[in-house]
Structure formats: structure tokens, C-alpha cells
């Protein structure tokens, strides 16, 4: 939970900036085991090990980010907002952290991205979480500023899927990060060295070069060839002006716990939107961007 104060000296920046200090935290929601609830069945996929160096770096920054790891027992209600479904409790889970990192299978149906939950209350069997219908990210009583969705198609470029999936969910959150097309994860609990390296590099650079650039730069990969398949990271924001969209993608950085930080203010009803991505990026399961 952070405290925010606005100083008069920063009045001219007040549209987008505030001074904040205090504690920050990360919530990890990693759906690795898809065999627990038969109705949400899918193959297992692993990510926990790939995030350990990311988390260690964050935990050692300033007075340290706190973290909560929730591996496997991620239920539908952790991800769904109560304003969308009466049983939703995301305010107490994914939205209660400054950063939420979600791993899970993902797909597209009728032009909308869905995250496949691995747990749901029996009888409800709510295994597909659609951001446009189930999420309401960042209203004033929650903390979330940045959502990272490590999932195939989470920011898919085809047929305006990114737009129709995420715009309805933007209500104060600063940026959402995902992938166009299919992305890589690990087939074993040991993780994958280069994915782990990329997440640590993402944490490092997000303090000095900005979060969006760091995401797009460090998560870009191409496969072992010869007919290359790319990993296509995307950063997405919604703000009050185009200039502010440009500004937040260029300059917003992770705050350092225990220090005074310049942070962007929440925009609850954005009017402009902007995506950052690699021109021509061509993944498996999607066309070139």
C-alpha cells in the first residue's frame, strides 16, 4: 500500500505526476498445474523458476518490494472483479498489488482474448476469464498499476483483439503488458535459462529506461531458426491525452521502495490509447505486426 502526496511545486506536472513513497508489492498468480480441476483441464506449463531472479532483484531494490507467490491455486475469483461478477474478488487479490504477474494459458474467441484459469468452484466451472467482461482494473480503492500477462495472445494484434479485450478493463491501471501470438514458457519446473534472464533484465532496465521499453526490448526473442518465429511483446496504455500516452510509455519507471518517486497518476476513464511493439514482429499463431 503506498501513500501519495502532491506538492504544489509539482503543480504543473500534476496532470500526470505525483510524488509517492512507501511500500510496494508484487503478486504472482502462476497457473502451472492444469490437472486439478478437470473442467479447466489443459497441459501443465511452468514459470515460477523463471521469475525468481526478477523477484530477487525487486526484493533488493531500495527497501525491497514485498511479494506474494500464488502457484497453482489460482481461482477464477482471484482474477475477476466484483463489479463484473458478484463472486469476483480481484480487489483482494490481483488488484491488491502494485504489480500483478499472471501466467496461464490463453486464447481468443470471437475476437476477445481469454485467460484460462486452472481452478474454479465446481459447478461454476468458470475457466475462461475475459478481460473485457471480467476485469475492471485500477479503480481508486485498489493498488494495481501494472499487469503482466504471460500468456499466448494476451495482447494479440489480429482483428483488434488487444483493443476489444483490454480497453474495457482500463480504469486506473497504468499499463498492461502481454504478447501478440504464441509465446514461450517452460516445460519443466526447472525453468528456462533465457526466459529467466529476460525477466531479470526486464526488472533491471525498468528502473532506468522505463517499463514499456524494458518490456518490449527484453522480451523480444526469435527462435533457433532457420524459419524464425518471433516472441512479440506489447505494452498498452490508456490516458487522458495522446501526449501523456507517449510520456508514460517513454518515461514511467518502477518506483524504488523507501525512496521518493515521481509516479504517474491514475486515469480512471482514458480517452486515448497507445501500444508499443516491434514492427514486423511475426510470431507463431499470428500474423506479422
Amino acid at each position: 500500500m503506498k501513500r501519495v502526496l502532491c506538492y504544489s511545486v509539482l503543480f504543473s506536472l500534476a496532470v500526470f505526476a505525483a510524488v509517492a513513497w512507501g511500500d510496494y508489492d508484487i503478486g504472482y498468480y502462476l497457473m502451472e498445474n492444469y490437472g486439478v480441476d478437470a473442467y479447466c483441464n489443459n497441459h501443465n506449463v511452468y514459470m515460477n523458476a523463471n521469475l525468481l531472479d526478477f523477484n530477487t532483484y525487486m526484493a533488493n531494490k531500495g527497501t525491497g518490494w514485498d511479494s506474494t507467490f500464488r502457484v497453482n491455486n489460482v481461482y477464477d475469483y482471484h482474477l475477476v472483479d466484483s463489479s463484473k461478477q458478484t463472486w469476483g474478488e480481484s480487489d483482494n487479490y490481483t488488484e491488491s498489488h502494485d504489480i500483478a504477474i499472471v501466467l496461464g494459458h490463453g486464447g481468443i474467441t470471437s475476437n476477445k482474448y481469454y485467460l484460462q484459469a486452472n481452478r474454479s468452484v465446481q459447478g461454476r466451472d468458470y475457466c475462461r476469464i475475459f478481460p473485457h467482461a471480467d476485469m475492471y482494473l485500477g479503480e481508486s480503492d485498489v493498488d494495481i498499476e501494472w499487469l503482466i500477462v504471460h500468456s499466448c495472445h494476451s495482447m494479440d494484434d489480429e482483428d483488434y483483439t488487444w483493443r476489444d479485450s483490454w480497453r474495457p478493463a482500463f480504469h486506473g491501471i497504468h499499463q498492461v503488458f502481454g504478447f501478440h501470438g504464441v509465446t514461450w514458457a517452460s516445460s519443466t519446473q526447472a525453468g528456462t535459462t533465457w526466459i529467466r534472464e529476460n525477466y531479470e533484465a526486464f526488472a533491471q532496465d525498468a528502473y532506468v529506461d522505463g517499463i514499456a521499453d524494458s518490456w518490449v526490448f527484453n522480451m523480444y526473442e526469435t527462435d533457433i531458426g532457420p524459419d524464425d518465429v518471433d516472441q512479440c511483446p506489447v505494452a498498452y496504455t490508456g490516458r487522458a491525452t495522446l501526449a501523456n500516452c507517449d510520456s508514460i510509455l517513454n518515461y514511467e519507471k518502477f518506483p524504488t521502495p523507501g525512496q521518493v518517486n515521481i509516479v504517474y497518476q491514475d486515469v480512471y476513464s482514458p480517452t486515448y490509447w497507445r501500444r508499443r511493439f516491434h514492427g514486423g514482429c511475426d510470431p507463431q499463431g499470428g500474423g506479422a505486426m
Partner: protein
Amino acid sequence: MRKTCWLVVAVTMALMPCVAAGKETCVDIYTLLPVEDAESQLFADALTLDLDIAEAENSTTPSGWVFFETAEFRIGRKAPTGDFVFVDRVVADRAIESAGPMKTNETMERRALEMMDAVSLPIEEIREVEFHRVVDQSEDFAGDLLGEPETTGFMFYGSRQIDGYVVEGSRVKALFDRNGDLVVFRSFWPEHSTRPVDCVPVVAEATLRTQAQDVVESRRGTHEITFFKGVLGYSREIESGRFTPSYIFDYSLDDGFLLRERIDGRR
């Protein structure tokens, strides 16, 4: 997205020693040279890059990174892999209006290669280079796209080969701002002995592919498998002390995540 393949020449040149020696097909084995003292290496890097670290703040991470940081830059080295990073904080934070003349693509590529050279990464080990734009696309309230995507930066990506064999996960990246000035340079490129310490016979690639497909099959369960591709290359796990010939392959289950595994390629 433009890609330049440097592989053909490299393969031709690299396979010559084994053939010339009259041996059966074998792959040269190199010893990995770990960076024992990342801080000392970083002093040398700073000197080469003409960076003044007299007033720099020093920090370390549990994973082995050592950083020197000032208001102008940040450089880091990781032990024992030798991974390297440089961030120009002035370029990262400046308003683009304050930038000088726009750089050409050739100038940016040359800058990336100069950085490789400066931190002792052998350019002849580049397998393939990609160079492409990073862009922003804006949308209005109604959801309509506003104009064409705007260039906000440029990306250089180089993959690695040794003796014509891919080194899995070894790569160099450089990010330039929209004016073409270097913002970030990163390398994952562990150094190896200049001469091979051994040359080991490898399993035929077709056989390795079959073995890899068997591994994938064992993961099948009730799921559909797509086997994408595999190559005989080197794995670069520093713990092993050597670049080990491996068959590296990508597959997916139910058209989901891409998954990469490797099996030992030695006979």
C-alpha cells in the same frame, strides 16, 4: 523486419578442421571461461567504453550482477557468465527534441557491432542479425487507429554460432531511441577457449530428431502435439564448464505455449 544470415560462410569455414583431420563427423568442444571477478571486468569495460566510474555507485545482486551507476549511465557484468549491460540514462530520459541529427540504420548497426567489439564479443560468432523498428500506434476514444505506427526506436538483435552451430540462448541486443542513439546494449555471450579441447562424435541429426520427437511424445498425455523444429547446436550452461553439443527443439501442446527442450547430442 530485415534479417542478415552470416551462417553459410561460418559453417563452411568452421567444419574444415574436423574434415581436414580426416576424423569422422565430430563437433569441437570448447571450455567455457567463467568471469570470476565481475567487478574487475567492469573496470576494464568502463575504461574501454571511456566511462568515468570514479563517482559511480556500486551495487550487486544475489544472481551475480555487479553494477556501476551514475546519473549518466549504468553498466553491469554478471559472474560467472560474463553477461553485460550498458544503459545510457541521458538518452533514455531526454526529450527527443534535444537530440541531434537522425542516425542511419547502418550507423546504428555499426554502433552495436562496435559495442560488441568493445566488450570483447567476437563479431565473427554472429550467426544472424536482425534490425527493425519499435513503433507506437495510437487510438482515439472511438477505437480508431490514429495514422500509421510511429517509430519510437530501433532494435538490433544478434544470435550466435560457433563453428556453424547455433549457441542456444546466446544473444546480443541493442535498443536505439527514435533518433538512432544507443539506449541499451545487452549481451548473453559467455566466452570460450580459443582452441577446442576435444572433438566428440555426435549422433546423426535425423536420429536426434527422432529422439526429440520421442521426448515430446512422452509429454503428450491427452494433448495434441506440434513439433516445430530442432537443430544440432551448443547449449551454454555455464555450470557444465563446456559448450555441449545438444539437439535443441521447440514444440507445443494443443497449440499453446512454445516449449523448448534439449537432449544430449553426443554419441
